[in-house]
């Protein structure tokens, strides 16, 4: 089981894997999808896919669409693991 700190670390790693050219200062938990240069629908798909594979979980269609920030992804993953 992950504690919040570990889970946040893993979620953040997913962001940096999907957005390969992102710098540390470009990341924030609250930053919204529209404020990312490369967060398009395919990047959304990659985030979901990567999270599902990493934690062996499955997001519903609604969840997949509603995630708009790193924090929301973290909360969504957490809800599946608890």
């Amino acid at each position, binding site marked *: 089981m992950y504690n919040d700190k570990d889970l946040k670390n893993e979620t953040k790693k997913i962001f940096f*894997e*999907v957005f*390969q050219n992102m710098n540390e200062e470009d990341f924030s938990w609250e930053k919204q999808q529209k404020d990312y240069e490369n967060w*398009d*629908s*395919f*990047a959304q*798909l*990659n985030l*979901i*896919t*990567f999270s599902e*594979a*990493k934690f062996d979980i499955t997001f519903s*269609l609604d969840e*997949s*669409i509603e995630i708009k920030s790193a924090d929301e992804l973290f909360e969504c993953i957490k809800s599946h693991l608890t």
Partner: protein
Amino acid sequence: MNVIDYLENNSKKYPEKNAIISEDEKISYKELYEQVQNFSLSISTLNKQGVISLIAENSISFIITYLGIIKAGLIVHITSTEISEINLLNQIKSSNSQLIVCSEKIFDNISKYSKIKIPILKLSELKAVSNIEEKTFKENQIAHLIYTSGTISEPKGVGITHSMIEFTTKNIVNVLGYSNSDIDVLPLPLYHSFGLGCFHTSMAVGSTVILHKDASHLQNLLDSIKKFSATTIAATPATLTKFSKLYNTDLVDYFSNLRLVITNSTAIPKSTIQSFREILKNGNLATYYGLTEASRSTFMIFQEDTTRDDSVGKPAPEVNIRIEQNGNSRGEILVKGKNVISKYWNNEMADENLIDGWLRTGDIGFLDKENFLFLKGRKDDIINVGGEKVIPFEIEEVVKQIPEVEDVAAYGIENEIFGQVIKLQVVKSIESNLDKSKILIHCLKNLEKFKVPTKIDFVEKIPKTSYGKVKRFMLK
């Protein structure tokens, strides 16, 4: 010159020479020609014109029957010994075949098919009669009819004319250097264009065919190569890969007399090509690209230069290839030449793939600056991810770069948002701890976002045809 002329000429030039040596019998050119003549007469009494179906395993009887039907001026419809009842019924109906001639083993199976209403005869039941009647053939007369393997669609009948056989055989002989001194090991099914083309070649030059029922016993093939001092062998990439993995250290000795190993257009693993570079001390590995509708359209002889190991070679002499590009350098491969059919067998819908002599192959690929052709998959296999076109082959190539990946197949699955997304089936190497995240990270680094798979299943085996092609319809 047609295949009967080849045989007749050789029966005069090399009457006592072995034309075919099979696992349990052999036959000289003179005997083969006589038996083909006799057989053609026995067929003539049964059927004055039309199509006769031949279903049998590789054997000298198969060859006599095949050539005998052609010599009788009829069309021989050849089909797989593994054919299902429904496919056989479809082919009989489409070809309008009047008679089935089959081996004893096949007879036991198909005689149970109650819906087949035409006569079924065993090879042994056909007896020769006297009074040989000479036949002449028109160039555009169909010699044999093969149905292309329908996977999800209706099979298409492909009628191969005498002139197509002559053209293709001439190209094979010239490009790959076949001669009457060759001894050719042939373990490929004769009901397939690859095997049949090899057989025609041997008949054209007057070499000796060492005919095997199949390639399932590798040691038998090796024994034949050694026993008969074979100079060529034809085999699928899957067989060659098995050879290179199982017998790597001993193969050099077995293959020392071979001047040519010919395989076909399915992608050959680079490691297999490299193994054969080392194994073949006095010969070359070669491949070709072709369809039943356009046999041997390219040839590739693998040389020391490894940069084009994934190419299927340059267009064959007097064969034109062009790529119908769709926004990038890759596109559908179109072929034009005397090896290309002018129309399908009673199939107007399929004829739409033929425009001004150009055959739309349905294969995706590109030509490099020196006109080498590279295959990149099937048009039907293209995955449409939110309007972006993805060729599975491209994904598979990238995933195969991961050392722990033994095999992989990519295909499209339905998705509510994107229409389709990409799914992978992956075979991990033994004892590997490869996980899905590692595959995704590798894909994210090496592919555009829309090409990254969304689902990954680890499986024991990828379903493939005996020719090594992924059966994608079975993945979905």
